[in-house]
């Protein structure tokens, strides 16, 4: 195993070491050197003293899509959850190293994890709308928990979030219907609308399309490409074609180590590490 911190260059430390990003989807000029949203430094996470990720040093570029790939148990979901401290919901968890979010250490002792999670939204593998709530209430629940009561503000945010989630046209006449009455793909986009309604800066997605049919998957992927103009997106996926389609950067994890991090185009066409090539070409194990 090659040590991650010695082989993988932090994405944005300097202009010469930054991996190539794919061409932007729009024609808008790409920022020459986007600042990282997250900087993980020598991050290790242990579940009951068993390391899930080891000494991971990685910069997650801002307003880009970063995919995390790797076989089951490699630590990719743990790394994702470490970016908003969701892994702490698992008992007997221990963290070494640090994660800086816009310069602030997420693991500082006095930091409230719920405040972190307001700025860093998450979408899970299985869509999970609140079953007793309507479509509108599902979208607005986060805002209401944050104390927003102004009807005009709520209505505006409801439409804006559903539009951003590419769901507005499909549900605008059915906002009072239960969220679980929607199809699987629509439910997942509803969850994305719920996540972006509180206007986070980051969206973490843990296999957001793995339970969806191909058309619903494409809609979610298209949505990811549109959302990355406004949000930093980190997506865990087992689907390498999906990683190559939607992401600007890709990180490959194996046995808790970050093996390689590079621009997606480069990692999928000419990976530097043999382990990466073996994995993405299906010569693994």
């Amino acid at each position, binding site marked *: 195993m090659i040590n991650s911190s010695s082989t993988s260059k932090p994405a944005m430390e300097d202009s010469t070491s930054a991996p190539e990003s794919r061409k932007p989807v729009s024609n808008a000029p790409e920022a020459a050197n986007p600042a990282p949203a997250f900087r993980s430094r020598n991050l290790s996470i242990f579940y009951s003293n068993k390391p899930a990720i080891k000494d991971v040093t990685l910069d997650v570029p801002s307003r880009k899509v970063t995919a995390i790939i790797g076989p089951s148990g490699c630590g990719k979901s743990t790394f994702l959850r470490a970016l908003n401290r969701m892994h702490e919901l698992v008992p007997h968890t221990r963290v070494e190293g640090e994660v800086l979010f816009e310069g602030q250490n997420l693991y500082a002792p006095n930091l409230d994890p719920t405040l972190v999670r307001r700025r860093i939204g998450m979408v899970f593998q299985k869509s999970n709308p609140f079953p007793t709530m309507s479509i509108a209430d599902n979208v607005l629940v986060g805002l209401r928990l944050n104390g927003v009561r102004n009807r005009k503000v709520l209505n505006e945010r409801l439409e804006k979030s559903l539009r951003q989630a590419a769901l507005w046209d499909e549900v605008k006449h059915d906002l009072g219907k239960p969220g679980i009455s929607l199809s699987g793909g629509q439910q997942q986009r509803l969850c994305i609308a719920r996540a972006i309604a509180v206007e986070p800066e980051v969206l973490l997605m843990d296999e957001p399309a793995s339970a969806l049919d191909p058309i619903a998957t494409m809609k979610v992927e298209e949505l990811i490409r549109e959302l990355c103009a406004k949000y930093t997106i980190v997506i865990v996926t087992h689907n*390498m*074609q999906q990683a*190559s389609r939607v992401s600007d950067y890709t990180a490959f994890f194996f046995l808790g180590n970050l093996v390689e991090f590079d621009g997606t185009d480069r990692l*999928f*066409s*000419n*990976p530097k590490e043999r382990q990466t*090539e*073996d994995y*993405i*070409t*299906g*010569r*693994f*194990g």
Partner: protein
Amino acid sequence: MTVRSRHILKDFESALELLRANVLMMASLTDRSLQNAMTCLLDRQSRNGALTIADEEEVDALEKTVDGQGINILLRFQPVAFDLRQVISAMKLSGNLERIADQAVKIAERSQSLNRRPELEEVSALGPIFLEAITLFRDSIRAYGDNDVALARSILPRDKELDEMNRQITRDLTSCMSSNPSRITDYVHLLFIARYMERIGDHAKNIGEDAVYAAEAKDIRHPTNVLVS
């Protein structure tokens, strides 16, 4: 040369092996066509020229087979990295091989025309050019087959030497035309044959470039073009 472990999907591994085998079969047939065209010209063996012409159909069919297999692999397995480069380079190689086989046929046809006429002393002057073109072709195939990047990179400067040999023979044959106008048609045949050999060198260079891409993911085409990033 890096030894790669086998793919988890046996069908994918088999499809890649079959694709490669068909490209190498095409190369072998093309090599035979070139040799037959050469003996047709230099040894006045018109029958060998007929063999070159007969082989063309098989090369053409293999080109379509390779393209079809490549498209099938892209559709079914969505290869990436080294595997993707193997498929792309195989499909590009097949196009170049088909063009080389075409050049061999044209050489054979013009050689057969020459063989129906009295022997021309200047024909032998094309021997070294033919030999260099065939050597370039064989080296390009060896570079592809063995992932030999150094050999592949050596082809570009050698192709320039072949170009210079072609320019020299063109000058010589042009002066022969003025000194021996009764054989002007035959000299035109020789000029075209020299031009076909020069084209074979160009295709060998393309194959060498594809071999570098397949092995190293480096695009070495058009190195002096400022518009190429």
